[in-house]
């Protein structure tokens, strides 16, 4: 077991990180806002952690990087993301649907080009040699797993309180929500900011985890991946993005392991190993066509909670 965790440490932590990034997209979606800005805030958070840990907090390179400083960087990344989200969100959230998605893609692209050209972000090379707080990758779970549980609890509760209800009202009918006293602009920016904070915090810990940080973090590709996590996992309950993010991150690795199974025709094994992206894309299409609400839907839980009503017409056995 320990062997399994140690060899798959990178994958397991990546799955947890993906789950949180999917949640960061799910939060604005709760208020009906299709925002693809998460990778931008993820990149921002990562650069903040990278710059702080390599240039501001200079520590003994032979000692593990202090964990309180990592947490401090995560907090700074969260605050910075919140600030940027409000500045970007107030004008951007006047746009609706596909136009908002386009504007947020542009936002991610602007940040990417900025990071490629600024000195502080290390240009095209990026920032490398980010100090490690842990000796093995699996140990990152000590930070990311509580963070995931915390964010899941947050979203779970949010869906059951006044603010979450206001988000849902805007998702259902923005005009009617306004007529019922819900301030659409405020709540949309709030939902967008919550998602940005989560993405920024995840970016900060990811910078340590990945050891280097450059403009390849937080790109348009990432936007689409996170969207796939949410759409395939399910966009109507927070468990959808979490499970979607984990499953789709693990999928390529699972396929790679499966392709090594003995007895497989070589062409099939080769396809599973090299054709991961094809399988991934195929799943995206099939998933959205046949499961428009995703794999995890709220109905799934309702059915389990409420037992099926007894049949009203007695069966022959019951009558006898």
């Amino acid at each position, binding site marked *: 077991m320990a062997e399994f965790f140690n060899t798959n440490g990178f994958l397991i932590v990546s799955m947890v990180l993906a789950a949180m990034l999917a949640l960061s997209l799910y939060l604005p979606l709760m208020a009906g806002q299709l925002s693809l800005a998460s990778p931008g805030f993820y990149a921002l958070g990562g650069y903040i952690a990278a710059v702080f840990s390599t240039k501001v907090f200079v520590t003994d390179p032979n000692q593990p990087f202090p964990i309180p400083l990592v947490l401090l960087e995560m907090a700074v990344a969260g605050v910075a993301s919140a600030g940027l989200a409000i500045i970007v969100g107030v004008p951007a959230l006047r746009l609706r649907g596909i136009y908002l998605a386009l504007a947020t893609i542009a936002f991610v692209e602007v940040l990417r080009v900025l990071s490629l050209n600024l000195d502080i972000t290390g240009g095209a090379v990026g920032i490398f040699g980010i100090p490690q707080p842990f000796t093995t990758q699996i140990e990152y779970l000590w930070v990311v797993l509580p963070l995931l549980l915390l964010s899941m609890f947050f979203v779970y509760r949010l869906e059951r309180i*006044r603010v979450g209800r206001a988000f849902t*009202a805007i998702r259902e*009918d923005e*005009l009617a*929500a306004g007529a019922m*006293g*819900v301030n659409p602009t405020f709540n949309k920016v709030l939902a967008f900011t919550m998602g940005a904070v989560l993405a920024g915090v995840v970016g900060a810990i990811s910078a340590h985890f990945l050891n280097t940080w450059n403009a390849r973090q937080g790109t348009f590709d990432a936007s689409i991946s996170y969207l796939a996590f949410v759409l395939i996992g399910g966009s109507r309950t927070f468990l959808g993005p979490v499970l979607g993010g984990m499953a789709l991150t693990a999928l390529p690795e699972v396929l790679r392991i499966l392709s090594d199974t003995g007895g497989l025709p070589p062409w099939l094994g080769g396809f599973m190993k090299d054709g991961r992206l094809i399988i991934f894309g195929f799943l995206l299409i099939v998933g959205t066509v046949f499961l428009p609400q995703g794999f995890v839907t709220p109905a799934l839980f309702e059915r389990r909670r409420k037992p099926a009503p007894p049949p009203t017409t007695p069966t022959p056995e019951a009558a006898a």
Partner: protein
Amino acid sequence: MIEPTVSPASGRATGDMPMVEVRGISRRFGGLLAVNNVSFSVQKGEIFGLIGPNGAGKTTLFNVMTGLIPATAGRLIYQGQDITRLPPHRIAAKGIARTFQNIRLFGNLPALQNVMIAQHVHTHSGVITGVLGLPSDRAEEQRTREKAMALLDLVGLSRRAHETAINFPYGDQRRLEIARALALEPALLLLDEPAAGMNTNEKHELSAFIRRICDQFHLTVVLIEHHVPLVMGLCDRIAVLNFGQLIALGAPEMVKNDPAVIEAYLGAE
């Protein structure tokens, strides 16, 4: 049953001040003057009817009064305050609630949630304390739920509280919209064709129901309706719109015999 709650807004109104004053409101859509310099005022406690042929500008006037579309000209005075330029949620918070002609419920949500959402301005639970579920937040949540349930009971929908609103029959959807509007604790309730699609029997029930909630919640009601007997029997005063213009205003009997109204409805002889 719910105790009649007097919201601070309605308590402040004096006897002389009208509940709402429409002062020369116009609304233009391109070349079409949908509402043309309409003025009237509605007194506190009145049931005020707004009638007119299709396309006369009744719903446009409602949309202007609730801030959903801005007025091209004119002013709206609600309990002495100018609300002409306020956004919809601020107007709602001041105590003006409405229903929609083409029902606009939160369709995918259960009936109970629909009514709970409309209590937004009367609840204050924040993000952090709400997520943590502090005792005061839990108590507020419980009150919100109970009040929503009581309102559903009032409109006779408490047994379907957990059903999705979009699955309700048409009449029930209209009643759910009224329950949702009442959750705002309004002083002024705007009903846009509340009897649309109802049979005669249901219309009689609705008429009695509007009277009852009007007394119970100390409401002032403005309603748009096509069914003339219902309007004549229910309303204290009636305004008639035709091609965006106010052509008659007064007590039902007076309006009924007004030549201009007869001409608008039946055509010139």
